[in-house]
């Protein structure tokens, strides 16, 4: 008997299985369906660096976390309401994060003696049979067996049939949350259009999972989650790297410049290269270079030729690009350098997130080498942040660093997307030969201190540029001491002046002044926002400001910070923005740091800030 569905305000589900179990796809498809129901949501895919770690091992566990609800959702959530574990290793590495009394759905076939051994469980102590799962609602489902049975006669081999296990699980969860199969069927029909056998098997497994409750008694509970109150408009789901791809393409069209993207594959930035490569009908030129240095050098060469030159990488790649970034500063050439940060130093934690390249972006070059830094705060923010980076690069004739991170890159959320026609054109003009025939001066500056963009092929503007110090105005080589100091100061001032061309910093939520300002940047947006809202609701004088512009800072930032007794800077690093804020403003900002390759959890930041607020 199916009972009445119970209503839930929010649910956190973690899909966990072996790398080959298709958990990223399962999570992604469940997320797509969730988005269509109007829930707000946030996701966090978490996968190993190894492409196929040995099957069944703890190292091979791949996970996908989804938080959805009828209220605003800012983070993928701390602890899970529901854990789906496809094998013993997935259970072992995730059980500690399941809420007390939460639901654990396990695929029983993933708990044979081999799986137990690989998960480092005592073979005689099957967690499904002892007291390990006491206090949880446990659903043991023979997923493999039931998937095989549901497919029945098929030309597919056992291995291929077993690959449909994830569809069985997905079907069950769609039923459990009172969904239909429509979205998933549409996806499967499109994906396996030319593979009727595989399509048939996947659909059968999906439907069998959906109908599981008819045959298994414990599975009878159903839930609903009402739509969230989101701003009116058109929505789609977006992950961070896709947001950057779209922002770059739209910026290039609005600027009227062909987009050139030079890149070398690196996790977690590669999907920007993949994404842009598809958009050749928007005039996008992608170039998979031989290394990180050639990637940035080719982008600078393309900018020199009048394209919008962009390169993208992650931390180790940014280190390799340092010298060329210095050249771009010297050439005063438009360029966007995207760094999708990951755990470091060195190879570090390639598939885990971190915000530890801020100091590298700010200072990691030889000489006095200032450049603007723009950051993305969440998947739905990447589009605008990327456009801003392009705008600043072109209008101010400077390389710009755009910082994102692995958490933003792979995480998805609903995005109220804009219409391209509503966005203004961005003005850019190449230098032209003067009408009076006067000699072209490549380092003559405008009111923004930007020099002219003079591209080869233009008559009358012959000139030479390079990495050797330039004489002011003429751009000729100069070793003159006073000129060098003047040029160093001018390049610095040019970057600082960008503060006059960016919006003022605003408070995202909470109070405009008071006890604690949570000052964040990058992917801590969600946790800063949810903690601030919680504390403000409880009457505490807390505010949240999130910086998009890290260099220069918005002009009103200092005044804003001084309106609070304490400024707390949460970062997924060992304290980087906090150093810059203390240095620049002589203000005793308080760091809150987590360096575990994972986002900051709501409860830990909440506790920390609670201790700092006035409870009088």
């Amino acid at each position, binding site marked *: 008997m199916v009972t009445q569905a119970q209503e839930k305000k929010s649910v956190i589900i973690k899909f966990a299985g072996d790398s080959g179990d298709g958990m990223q796809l399962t999570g992604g498809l469940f997320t797509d369906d969730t988005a269509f129901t109007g829930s707000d949501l946030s996701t966090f895919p978490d996968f190993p660096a190894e492409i196929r770690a040995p099957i069944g091992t703890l190292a091979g566990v791949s996970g996908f976390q989804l938080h959805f609800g009828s209220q605003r959702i800012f983070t993928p959530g701390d602890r899970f309401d529901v854990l789906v574990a496809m094998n013993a290793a997935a259970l072992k590495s995730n059980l500690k994060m399941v809420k007390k009394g939460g639901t654990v759905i396990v695929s029983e076939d993933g708990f044979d003696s081999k799986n137990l051994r690989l998960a480092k469980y005592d073979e005689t102590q099957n967690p499904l049979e002892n007291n390990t799962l006491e206090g949880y609602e446990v659903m043991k489902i023979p997923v493999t067996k039931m998937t095989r049975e549901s497919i029945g006669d098929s030309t597919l081999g056992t291995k291929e049939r077993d690959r449909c296990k994830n569809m069985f699980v997905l079907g069950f969860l769609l039923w459990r949350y009172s969904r239909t199969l429509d979205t998933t069927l549409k996806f499967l029909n499109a994906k396996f259009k030319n593979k009727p056998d595989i399509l048939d098997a996947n659909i059968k497994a999906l439907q069998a999972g959906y109908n599981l409750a008819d045959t298994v008694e414990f599975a009878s509970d159903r839930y609903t989650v009402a739509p969230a109150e989101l701003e009116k408009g058109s929505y*789609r789901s977006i992950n961070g790297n896709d947001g950057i791809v779209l922002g770059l393409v739209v910026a290039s069209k609005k600027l009227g410049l062909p987009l050139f993207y030079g890149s070398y594959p690196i996790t977690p930035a590669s999907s920007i290269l993949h994404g842009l490569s598809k*958009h050749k009908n928007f005039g996008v030129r992608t170039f998979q270079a031989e290394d990180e240095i050639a990637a940035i050098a*080719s982008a600078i060469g393309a900018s020199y*030729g009048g394209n919008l030159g962009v390169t993208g990488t992650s931390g180790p790649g940014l280190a390799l690009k340092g010298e060329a970034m210095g050249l771009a500063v010297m050439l005063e050439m438009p360029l966007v350098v995207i760094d999708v940060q990951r755990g470091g130093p060195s190879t570090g934690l390639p598939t885990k997130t971190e915000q530890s390249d801020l100091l590298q972006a700010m200072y990691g070059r030889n000489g006095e080498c200032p450049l603007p830094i723009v950051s993305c705060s969440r998947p739905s923010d990447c589009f605008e942040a990327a456009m801003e980076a392009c705008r600043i690069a072109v209008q101010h004739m400077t390389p710009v660093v755009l910082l994102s991170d692995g958490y933003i890159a792979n995480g998805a959320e609903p995005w109220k997307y804009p219409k391209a026609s509503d966005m203004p054109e961005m003005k850019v003009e190449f230098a032209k030969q003067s009408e009076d025939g006067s000699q072209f001066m490549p380092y003559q500056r405008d009111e923004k201190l930007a020099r002219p963009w003079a591209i080869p092929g233009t*008559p009358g503007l012959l000139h030479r540029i*390079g990495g050797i110090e330039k004489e002011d105005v003429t751009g000729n080589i100069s070793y003159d001491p006073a000129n060098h100091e003047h040029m160093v100061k001018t390049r610095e001032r040019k970057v600082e002046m960008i503060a006059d061309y960016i919006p003022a910093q605003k408070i995202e939520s909470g109070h405009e002044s008071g006890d604690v300002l949570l000052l964040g940047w990058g992917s801590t947006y969600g946790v800063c926002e949810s903690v601030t809202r919680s504390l403000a609701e409880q009457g505490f004088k807390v505010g949240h400001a999130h910086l998009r512009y890290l260099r220069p800072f918005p002009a009103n930032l200092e005044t804003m910070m001084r309106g609070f007794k304490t400024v707390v800077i949460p970062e997924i690093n060992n304290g980087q923005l906090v150093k810059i804020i203390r240095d620049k403003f002589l203000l005793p900002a308080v760091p809150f740091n987590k360096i575990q390759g994972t986002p900051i959890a709501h409860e830990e930041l909440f506790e920390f800030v609670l201790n700092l607020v006035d409870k009088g």
Partner: protein
Amino acid sequence: MAIESNPTGIPYTLKAKDFATDQDVRWCPGCGDYSILKQVQTTLADLGKLPHETVFVSGIGCSSRFPYYMETYGMHSIHGRAPAFASGLKIANPNLSVWVITGDGDALSIGGNHFMHLLRRNFDLNILLFNNQIYGLTKGQYSPTSEEHKKTPSTPFGSIDHPVNPIALALGCDATFVARTMDRDPKHMKDVLQQADAHRGTSFIEVYQNCNIFNDGAFEIFTEKDTKADTTLILEQGQPLVFGKSGEKGVRLDGFTPQVVDLTADEFTKADLWVHDNADHVKAGILARFFDNPTASPDSLPRPFGVFYRTGRPSYEAQLHEQLDAIMGSMGEGDLDKLIAGGSTWQIN
């Protein structure tokens, strides 16, 4: 001769000096670079190149100051990376005549990676490698082309590096135009430069260039009158490989083994000699291995100069733009609003 409108609209004919800038040339007096600069300026004028459609891109090193002396567009980039800057530039604007200026350290040591990829991709540009077998700008350390056992400030007891053979390397990278010339033979250099310019694809030219400060006379056996005829072999398309003061020596192939023969003896005539065919990759490979000291013994092979190899292969940027055009043709110009909305959307009302 080229005609270009000057700012007042009056056409004029360009001469070599029109390609010279007002900057003082700062190479050491007696440096081989002067001769190369002169020949490049002359050749561009003779070819009718328009200065504003010509770009010189260089790396770091003595030779890489070259762009500052050319009244064209120019970029003095960073060490070893000039090929990568030039690649991006050619994608942005395939119509430009681009010349990469580099040296043995710049191209073959720090920039070895980019050099290899530039050649295999076959961007339509020219690369002039000034080979002086030494690091000049950093004051005399041995380079990747220095001979073995070379004593330099960084190798006071002699170097133990085996030198790279630039021509063999270029052929190994499937370069589509491979040539060698020398600073002391302006006429030969000009001829090679003209052929390089006419070639569509990456034209690689190794120029033997004397560094009179740190490695003086490195190539003198090839450049000085009394030895040149016996040590050098000037490659001419369709002509037999003949050298020596009065053309008394030749090279024949015994199977795949090249052999120096005496044409004054009765055994061989010109008809027995290897006839140069720069379309033959295998033979170009053998010619590239004429790399030992030609004065070592009477049987030693001479050092070849001229075009070793040339072949037609579409350039990278031409293929890139063909692909872009084909996709634009089949898919039509992209619609930004559709792109932003993506596959599936929903409304909140």
